[in-house]
């Protein structure tokens, strides 16, 4: 285990520059978000939105057309269900979509990092001959490969999870006071988002990614072990050719393309689970924007993914033992 963690640490040290670049992009994203929030706040001011609490009575004022319309929400009605008027619904949807988009954007960015890492992980040590050094150590080939695979999957998805959750809280902090006030007026404060559900569901989503994208991860590592040059281009090129060939051969028969199909189902999961903001919502109730991905984890698709990843993993180990150098 000590060796395994040393190998993981070594992977991080070797790839930290790439990580720092990703972190840089992440920070840039945070800055853009802060700027966006600032602009939103300004836009709300411009449209004359204001919120006051008078005793137990909430007063929402919006003066978009200079009409000075005021909506008083009496205290005895604050527990009832309100129909969300257009403007607040847009704001609520904005935040709902923003949360989802940000989570997926960070996740996608980190998955790109995983693709770059996995395609180069073995190839790099073969091309600079350092593979001879690692193989001169008392450590099994399978442990070396497992450390790379763990780093490129569990490690990177963990990074994605932590960063995206941090980002959600960042957004929460960055909500401009006025926007939150309007949401509060409709019983839709961001505080009502059930964050524990969100984080739990997001974690389950990552486990699902690990299972369903596992074969792709091992595939990239496999290519990195086999090719003599350009592992990333080769891996992507072969993947595209395979997808096209599959579609050409099996398309008319309706057999799903296993590659694009994987992503289609993935997208479907997001569509199913991450519902749009409902038209009506009960004041003070918890808003469950995020469903559970748990049911998808224990599925036939997961089982097939594990089996395919296992087969590719065996092939990767086989070629790792044989393909030492790239020349």
């Amino acid at each position, binding site marked *: 285990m000590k060796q395994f963690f040393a190998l993981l640490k070594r992977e991080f040290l070797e790839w930290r520059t790439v990580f720092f670049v990703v972190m840089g992009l992440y920070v840039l994203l945070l800055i853009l978000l802060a700027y966006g929030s600032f602009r939103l706040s300004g836009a709300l001011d411009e449209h004359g939105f204001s919120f006051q609490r008078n005793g137990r009575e909430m007063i929402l004022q919006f003066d978009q057309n200079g009409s000075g319309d005021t909506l008083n929400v009496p205290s005895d009605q604050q527990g009832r269900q309100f129909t969300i008027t257009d403007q607040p619904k847009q704001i609520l949807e904005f935040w709902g979509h923003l949360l989802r988009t940000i989570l997926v954007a960070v996740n996608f960015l980190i998955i790109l990092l995983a693709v770059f890492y996995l395609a180069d992980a073995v190839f790099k040590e073969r091309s600079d*001959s350092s593979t001879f050094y690692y193989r001169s150590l*008392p450590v099994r080939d399978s442990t070396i490969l497992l450390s790379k695979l763990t780093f490129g999957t569990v490690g990177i998805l963990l990074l994605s999870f932590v960063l995206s959750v941090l980002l959600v809280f960042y957004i929460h902090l960055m909500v401009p006071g006025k926007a939150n006030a309007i949401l509060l007026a409709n019983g839709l404060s961001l505080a009502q988002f059930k964050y524990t559900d969100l984080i739990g569901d997001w974690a389950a989503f990552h486990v699902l990614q690990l299972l369903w994208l596992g074969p792709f991860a091992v595939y990239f590592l496999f290519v990195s072990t086999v090719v003599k040059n350009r592992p990333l281009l080769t891996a992507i090129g072969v993947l595209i050719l395979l997808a096209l060939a599959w579609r050409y051969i099996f398309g008319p028969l309706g057999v799903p393309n296993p590659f694009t199909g994987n992503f289609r189902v993935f997208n479907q999961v997001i569509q199913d689970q991450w519902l749009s903001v409902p038209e009506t919502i009960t004041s003070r109730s918890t808003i469950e924007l995020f469903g559970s991905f748990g049911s998808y984890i224990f599925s036939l698709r997961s089982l097939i993914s594990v089996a395919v990843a296992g087969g590719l993993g065996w092939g990767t180990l086989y070629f790792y033992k044989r393909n030492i150098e790239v020349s």
Partner: protein
Amino acid sequence: MDVLIQMEKVHKSYGRTTALDQVTVNIPAGKIVGLVGPNGAGKTTMLRALTGLISYGGKIKVLGMEPKKQRADLMERAGVIHDVPILPPWMRVRQLLDFQEQMHPGFRRSRCEDLLQRTSIQSNRKIKHLSKGMKTQLHLSLMLATESEILILDEPTHGLDILFRKQFYKSVLEDYFDKNKSIIVSTHQIEEVEHILSDVIFIKQGQVLLYDSVDNLHRRFIQVVVPAQQADALREFDPLTETSRIGRKVFLLENVDPDKVSRFGEVGKPSLADIFVALMGGEA
């Protein structure tokens, strides 16, 4: 004496090229064995097979272990230096020591640091910024500070200057070798290692031409330097080689009693390089 390496009918081909051709050798422990052969003779292939880096036909046991299946276990008791720099170029020297310490239970960090203090290698430097000689020095320090029973060196001084090459082998002898340890060193520059070898293997086109102790070789082969007019007399002994040296002739003879030829000229020990060239048929 314990057998260190057993090779039995070991065979390895790359496509149509045979790199090792039914090699059978048994090497006892406590020796410094030179693996000598011209470029492409199969030296590197043999050492890679011994360290479990490549697949092969036949049977190999090193320290009682089968390298192909037990490479990780074997590497706990063996050190290897290759002919090219293999240390991760992105690491700093300090990070390399950290890594080696975590990966190899036999690594003694303080000893490595002591060895490095004799050099100009600084711990915060990146390996990629070190010269080739420094990289080899660093790797050697790493190996010398790691407990092992056998050190396998595959042309370790390839591309380095003569001063460094001499210093390298001096360190190997003084800081590593004792009767409980063994060294196998491959080279095609035999004159460099001749003085440290106890045994030698001559290899050509994947076949072992000769495996013997250096002492035996010096008993088996003699060199006779005679005036040119005595050459015909020496030719009667069926010399392996005959070369000219400013008005004199130099003969290499095999299995000839020195007393029988001493009356013709000076009898001496041939260098391993001379024996090697003779056995290679002038192809060295």
